[in-house]
């Protein structure tokens, strides 16, 4: 049915079919861009080496170091201490050299968190397929790319064949009408969506986010939304490319130029869900009445409006366990609860517009006494731009720590962590037990809400700080 209406997902999927799926065998799906990093790639390279395989398309593979890298300049540039993390970094360097893969190494000016760097370089392009051994690969879907996380065995598959065996996922259309209120951000929207559909609400599906609220968003905001698709269990998140997308991409180092650019845009303009195309599931959402959101529990679906109260349900074992871990009583409000750490960073919320939002709120204010605030830009490029704009100075003047880029306290693999029992307001994506450090207790929120917590020393409504 060539002419039947198709969803955006179906268009990208069909365009990358090396062979279609049958009852017996999955589809072979071609991968346009393979992003790799130090944590989930070493065993894949070992597997290639054991079998005597080469990397099929090294020029379609980009490598960076982000998860276990130090964010303190003295450690980063002064030489990492010997140990497992340093070995992992050295292993990636060796693998990239051996297999001819471009690596944005610790000294690279373009290095960054893999899902920040790809779009920034213009490597992330509409209509492409992008994979990475990292679940937040869904971020790149903001450009209308089919982008999803894979395990290390599949990293080896893609290195060796530039392809993946895949069953066609189902589609979930999420229609979001209305306008986000003042100080209500993309982060608040995606937390609300996860709260509504649940942390398994997207399992087996690719989500397409659509509607006025999405069209009005910047690319940075769209990336925040798509980034957390995996927190709803979804395979990927997609947003159809439009003028905002083209404007963001034009002139980026890896994007086409001249007439090639014009041809690319003409092609990309076809990348939208046709009138009459059917999703397997569809839900509707109104952004207008949303408030700033915050999580109270140990998965991103345990969220509520910042002015709300934590639910109370004696029979809910998962809720009770989560509240016990968090040290929060059922029915309590969160506003006014003292916090220890604030983290602004991660592939969810460490782009320039996120830092601008936090800086606007913090300008002329100080990080509250007893609170540690860490601001970690998503890439070295963002770091330079934030310094040039004076954002970094705002953070430093306020008493926050301003770091080199990396995943940092989102995953706490690099020494940046929240202490046992401490409370952190974090702009990252996961509030799982121990995610930010053993025993750490995480409240996920937007950069504005994080900044409000930093200056007040407790969970606060950012709207009280901004006119």
């Amino acid at each position, binding site marked *: 049915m060539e002419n039947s209406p198709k969803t955006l997902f179906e268009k990208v999927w069909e365009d990358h079919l*090396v*062979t279609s799926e049958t*009852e*017996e*065998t*999955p589809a*072979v799906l*071609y991968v346009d861009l393979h992003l790799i990093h130090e*944590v*989930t790639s*070493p*065993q894949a390279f*070992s*597997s290639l080496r054991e*079998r005597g*395989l080469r990397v*099929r398309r090294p020029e379609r593979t980009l490598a960076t170091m982000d*998860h*276990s890298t130090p964010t303190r300049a003295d450690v980063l540039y002064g030489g990492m201490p010997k*140990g*497992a*993390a340093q*070995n*992992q970094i050295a*292993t990636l360097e060796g693998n990239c050299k051996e297999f001819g893969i471009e690596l944005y190494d610790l000294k690279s000016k373009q290095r960054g968190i893999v899902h920040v760097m790809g779009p920034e370089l213009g490597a992330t392009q509409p209509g492409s397929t992008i994979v990475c*051994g990292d*679940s937040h690969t869904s971020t790149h879907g903001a450009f209308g790319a089919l982008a999803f*996380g*894979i*395990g*290390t*065995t*599949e990293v080896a*598959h893609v290195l*060796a*064949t*530039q*392809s*993946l*065996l895949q069953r066609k996922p189902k589609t979930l259309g999420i229609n979001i009408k209305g306008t986000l209120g003042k100080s209500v951000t993309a982060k608040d929207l995606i937390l609300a969506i996860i709260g509504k559909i649940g*942390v*398994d609400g997207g*399992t087996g599906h690719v989500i397409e986010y659509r509607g006025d609220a999405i069209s009005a968003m910047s690319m940075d905001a769209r990336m925040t939304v798509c980034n957390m698709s995996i927190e709803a*269990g979804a*395979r990927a998140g997609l947003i159809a490319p439009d003028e905002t997308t083209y404007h963001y991409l034009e002139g980026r180092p890896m994007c*086409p130029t001249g007439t*090639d650019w014009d041809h690319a845009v003409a092609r990309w303009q076809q990348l939208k869900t046709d009138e009459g195309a059917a999703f397997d599931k569809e839900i509707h959402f109104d952004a207008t009445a949303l408030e700033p959101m915050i999580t109270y529990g140990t*998965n991103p679906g345990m969220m509520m409006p910042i002015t709300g109260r934590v639910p109370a349900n004696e029979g809910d*074992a*998962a809720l009770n*366990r989560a509240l016990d871990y968090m040290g929060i009583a059922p029915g309590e409000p969160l506003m006014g609860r003292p916090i220890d750490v604030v983290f602004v960073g991660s592939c969810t919320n460490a782009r320039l517009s996120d830092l601008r939002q936090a800086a606007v709120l913090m300008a002329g204010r100080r990080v509250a006494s007893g609170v540690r605030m860490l601001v970690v830009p998503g890439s070295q490029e963002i770091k330079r731009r934030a310094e040039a704009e004076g954002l970094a100075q705002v953070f430093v003047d306020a008493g926050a720590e301003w770091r080199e880029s990396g995943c940092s306290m989102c*995953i*706490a*693999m690099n020494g940046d962590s929240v202490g*046992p029992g401490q409370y952190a307001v974090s702009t990252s994506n*996961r509030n*799982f*037990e*121990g995610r930010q450090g*053993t025993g750490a207790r995480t409240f996920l929120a937007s950069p504005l809400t994080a900044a409000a917590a930093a200056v007040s020393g407790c969970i606060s409504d950012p709207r009280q700080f901004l006119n």
Partner: protein
Amino acid sequence: MEPITQLRSKTVVIANSDIDTDQIIPARFLTTTDQDGLGKYVFADWRFDDKGDSIEDFVLNKTEANDCGVLVAGHNFGCGSSREHAAWALRDFGFRAVVSTSIADIFRSNALKNGIVPVEVNDDTHQWLLANPRCEVTIDIGHSVLRLPNGTQCVFSIDSFARHCLLYGVDPLGYLLSQEQAISTYERSHPCGQ
């Protein structure tokens, strides 16, 4: 991978729903460049206290868990991170199957590639399994059936190709490599950036 047609083993129950891969293996153990020997880190923060001592009442620390190859877990097992280390760690600890009402997509894919059978069962079967820890179950991969000791059978869904790979010890990468000609044809008709 060794062919596997049937599993017969006792179950261990961790009833929590939404068990994420950060619980299965915390991120601080991911700085390894190997995939072996991760079993000692499985559920590390649930098994050990902050001094590194075993938390005695956690089920995986009980001797009765030693011979259990089937993990029965709450809804939405394996959500979160794509780390295959979670599957490597469970396998190294001795698990050969995970049973739940729902298993997260990336974990399911990783499990299958490491000889761990993801078994999604209906609510009734799940409730029975939760209520009867350490029961001996049979997982018949060829027929996609889980058999309970009370005689009940539950058919589960498993991708036919994944089942074929388990039954015959087929390496999916070998199959992908055999598609070389089709991949080359695709590349010729889709030059870079087209």
